[in-house]
Structure formats: structure tokens, C-alpha cells
């Protein structure tokens, strides 16, 4: 019963509780890093399995989604790289493209199957000469959303910068003109309307991560 009482005590005091829960979350990050096999692929589905309508999800209502002129948009890649570069959409489309029909799984529990096409993130990171020993890849978005992933996951073959949904340019609510599609991580890691990618060794956190979501968030 000491354990029961002790648990109840820890639970009642935020100054004891939150550091304890932070440590568990850090431990979960380490376990997930070990569990992550870079060669394990997420299950792929048939185009007929795509969820329709595909759900909209963000930290704001759908009408607030940023509307970006594709011709003005640039993706800035910076940080621990050899040559800083701003990519236009046509530059990204010039890379070999990948298409995937995969399941997006939200931290809330729901899931939906979608079809995304775009350029593998590894192609872009290799193009700019990213330091592959760096720990983090951070994404910053037009709606001030931020998130970050580990380098191993960034180089997973199914991690793409998606430009198309169902064979057409990404619609505004789904993250036009360019979003991260990473089926090995929870939905909130799939940043939408990305404007900047930064390679760094300084833990970048993210919009939800800073509020307590587990950082690694691997599937």
C-alpha cells in the first residue's frame, strides 16, 4: 500500500509529477530509437482503400489553413549542410518522385488512408549535403507550426516531401504546396505547408512536443 500511497502523492504534486512523466517520455524516446528499423516499411494499401473524404486536422479550423501562391513559395533548407538552398516547386518536382498509399495515424487514435506523391526527403538532404551525423531535422511551416524528427527517420525510404494528394497538387487544407509525409511517425509529425527545413544538433522540439506529446512519436 506504500506504493499506492506514494503514487497518489506523486500524482497530486505537479512539481514531482511533471519531471517524472518527462523522464518516462525521454525513456520512451530511447526505446523507440532502438525499436526503429530503418528498413521496415509501413504497410501499403490499394488506391481503392483511400479514405474519402480524407479528414482535415490541425491546431486551427480548416478555413484558417494558409493559402500560399505556389510560384512565390520557396523551401529553405539550412543548418548543418554544405550548401544552403531555396527550392522552388518545379525544382522539387525535378527530383525522381515517389508515390505511396499509406495510413496516417493520429495521436488521438483515428486513422485514414491517403495517397501522397513527392520527393524523398533523403534526396533533398543529400542534394544540400546535410551532415548525416546530425541528430535532428526540424520543419517550420507557414502557419507557424513546428516539428522535428530524428535523422534515421528522415532517411527512411517512405519519408517524402509530398507535393500531390491523389495525383493532384496538394489542396490547401492538406498542406499546400509541400508537406512532410512520414508513415513511420504519428500524424502530428507530418508537417504541412513547410517553408523551412533545418538540420541541427540542438533539440528543436515542436508545437505539440513542447506541450507534452512524446517527441519520437514513432509507429
Amino acid at each position: 500500500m506504500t506504493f499506492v500511497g506514494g503514487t497518489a502523492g506523486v500524482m497530486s504534486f505537479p512539481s514531482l509529477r511533471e519531471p517524472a512523466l518527462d523522464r518516462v517520455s525521454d525513456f520512451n524516446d530511447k526505446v523507440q530509437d532502438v525499436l526503429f528499423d530503418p528498413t521496415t516499411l509501413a504497410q501499403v494499401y490499394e488506391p481503392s482503400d483511400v479514405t474519402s473524404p480524407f479528414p482535415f486536422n490541425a491546431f486551427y479550423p480548416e478555413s484558417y489553413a494558409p493559402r500560399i501562391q505556389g510560384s512565390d513559395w520557396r523551401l529553405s533548407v539550412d543548418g548543418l549542410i554544405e550548401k544552403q538552398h531555396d527550392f522552388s516547386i518545379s525544382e522539387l518536382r525535378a527530383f525522381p518522385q515517389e508515390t505511396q498509399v499509406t495510413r496516417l495515424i493520429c495521436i488521438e487514435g483515428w486513422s485514414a488512408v491517403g495517397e501522397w506523391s513527392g520527393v524523398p526527403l533523403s534526396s533533398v538532404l543529400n542534394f544540400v549535403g546535410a551532415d548525416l551525423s546530425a541528430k535532428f531535422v526540424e520543419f517550420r511551416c507557414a502557419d507557424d507550426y513546428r516539428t522535428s524528427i530524428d535523422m534515421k527517420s528522415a532517411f527512411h525510404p517512405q519519408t517524402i516531401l509530398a507535393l500531390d494528394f491523389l495525383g493532384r497538387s496538394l489542396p490547401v487544407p492538406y498542406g499546400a504546396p509541400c508537406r512532410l509525409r512520414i508513415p513511420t511517425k504519428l500524424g502530428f509529425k507530418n508537417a504541412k505547408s513547410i517553408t523551412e527545413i533545418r538540420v541541427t544538433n540542438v533539440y528543436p522540439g515542436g508545437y505539440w512536443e513542447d506541450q507534452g506529446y512524446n517527441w519520437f512519436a514513432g509507429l
Partner: protein
Amino acid sequence: MPKAFSPLTRLLHWLNAVCVLGLTTSGWAIYNAAPFYPFEFPKEITLGGYLTPALRWHFLFMWGLMFGATLQIFLRVFLARGGPALSPIHSKILAEEFVDTLKLRLMHSAGIYVHTQRLLYLTVFALFVLVILSGLALWKPVQLQFIAEGLGGYEAVRRWHFWSMAGLVGFILIHVAMVMIVPSTLLVMLFGAQPEKEKE
């Protein structure tokens, strides 16, 4: 005569009890974030209240349960300790016990499980296997995708996890009701005392 439950078994029982309670009530808050049935759990009886803290609690207690369950299985399977025998179970004796129960004649002796208890605890063991497997499949639907495949896919796994939780809650209600009928069992599980064989 040995004590019914060793100190380690009793410690593991209470560790599991706290973890299952924490996992269940935080799980209710996680369910509420995206309910797949037309109801939600009242926020007041959930741990954490909403998704972010509930998930943090869920993973704390997940590691507690992992530790407790692993040790418990190790004790039972490899050291043949960790509690009274769960076999054999004879349907004829089950039927007799059922008739006795209807006549309000409950046999109970600490350290020995009647056949009804054996069946119940084996069912609970199966529910624990299911709740842990479906939980792992929800946590790692890509890295451990063979589990989700065996259980009918990601969305089916959410239902498996829900219903194995419901089964365990059903067990806890029966379990606590039985302790209320035979309160001396609580002392046995707390202090390991071996009371005289009794008939109620």
C-alpha cells in the same frame, strides 16, 4: 504450511493493481479524444482528463505493467511460484461449484483456488495477453505490424484494446465483489497471513 502468497507475489499484485487502474482510467481519456462508439467516459473519472497528460500517464503505467507482468510470468512459468495452481479444471466440478454458489455456499481457502477461480484467472490471463498485444500493436503499428496483421488491422486493434480493457474492468468488479464477500482475502494479499480454512 507455506503462506498463500509470497511477499514478492503480493508486491506484484499491488503493482499490477495500481498500473491497471492507471492504464484503464488514462485509457478512457485517450479514447475520449476520438471515440469510436457513441459515448465518452466522464472526464472526472479519467486520469489526466484530456489526451496529452493521459498519454503521459498511460506510458508511465505501461512500463510498470511490463515490469510486473514479466516478473509475474517468470515466477509462475520458470519458478512455479507466484500463486496457487491454475489447473486442472474439470467441467463437472465447475458445475458443482456453480450450484453451490447459487445456494450461497462459497468455499474459500487461502492458498488453493477452486475450479471456478482457476477458470476466471486463466480468462484474466488471456485478457492481459490480449490487452498487452493490442496495446503494443497500437503503439508500434509499423515496427510491430505483424501483431496488427494478426488482429485484423489497425482499426480492429483499437476495438480489441477497448474490449480487452472492458473485460478486465468486468473482472475487477467481480474480483472486488468477492473480496467484499470474503474480506479475509484482503488481509492475505496485504500481509500474507494464512487464516484457518473457512466456510461461508
